[in-house]
């Protein structure tokens, strides 16, 4: 029981290595014209936030994992 509790606390204090934003299945962004291409292989959180801010992507394009990235 104590072991499980420790494991659970440890998980909460860890930032996941994956980014906060992940494109939903099948979503590809072309923010700089038809020859541009963003998918999960070249997406970073900075890029995702920028594209949302500039209106070239919508929140609904992403799976946003903000609740998992809490640090103490």
């Amino acid at each position: 029981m104590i072991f499980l509790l420790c494991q659970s606390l440890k998980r909460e204090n860890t930032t996941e290595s994956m980014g906060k934003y992940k494109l939903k299945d099948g979503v590809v962004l072309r923010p700089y014209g038809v020859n541009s291409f963003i998918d999960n292989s070249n997406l970073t959180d900075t890029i995702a936030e920028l594209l949302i801010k500039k209106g070239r992507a919508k929140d609904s394009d992403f799976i946003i994992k903000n609740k998992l990235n809490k640090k103490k």
Partner: protein
Amino acid sequence: MAITSNSIDILGVAAEPIIEEVLFQNNTLNKGLVTFEDDVKAETIFTEASATATMQQFTSGAPTSSGDLSSWDAKVTPSKVMFYQEFVPNDLRFSRYKRSMSPSAWNDFSTEFERVVIGGIYAQKISLSAERNFWLGATAATKATIAGLTAGLPNTSIGAEEQAMVAASLGADAQFDGLLTTLLYNTSRAGGTAAVGERLKVVGTTIDASNIKAEYGKVYTAIPSEVLESGEMPTFYAPYSHRQLIAEFNNNVANYKDAFLVSGDTYSYNGIKIEFVPFPENVILCARKSHLFWVTDLTSDVNRMKMDKIANNREDMFLKNIMSIGAHVGNQKFNVLYVG
């Protein structure tokens, strides 16, 4: 590789001419939009120099040295690349191209196919690929390095927009770092350390027909005054779509006068010529042509193609084009790069 030919047996006559794919022109080569530095096999030295002259009080005694004289070298090596394709002329024996094959079963090579498809479309595609790679090329390593930089507002940092543009649009065939990549990250500085380029960064937005004048205005304002003062005028390098956006902006009855001057195929803004190149959308570069270099061994290599039998005892053939190509940017701190 065999020729993909979905042809029908000719029973009557074939219409002339063959409908060729519509292609852009390689204006970078045809119109000489950048400086061509040829006769470069490897490791060309580009030298930049600057000086500061400081006036000081006269003294009849021992003077103090003041000011600065500096010069540094950048070593540039073009990448050697090639295009290679194999094909079987016999694949066209039942197509319209048989009409231009000489008599004899030995002869299955169509002069019409050579003229239209190989010498026309394929050769032009090579030329366009060279141009596209020159402007947009980026190796996987450089893309990864730029993606790993911390984005920031100062000119010494990579911009978030620049980082997104690199991730989304640069790479092409990933054989070498093209001009936009070189503008953003290079070793062209004293000591040769790789770092963010010294371009003058302008943060932009999504350009459309309604704001295109305002956005060109931002780039114009960022040009250092000394660049406009005398000598060679800089050039705006813009995506092809701006030709249409400019036409739409100018086509407004409420405008007192056209903001963009258009005379035939010549476009300009505030007296600075606009040239259209294969840029990503929302990207504008303003620089003197003499600051942008296409480094190569021989410029005409782009148009030279070798075609022959693969071996003397075989009837299939190959097409081969070899060239060396690279990009270099000089006087970095005088070049304005707008990324929206």
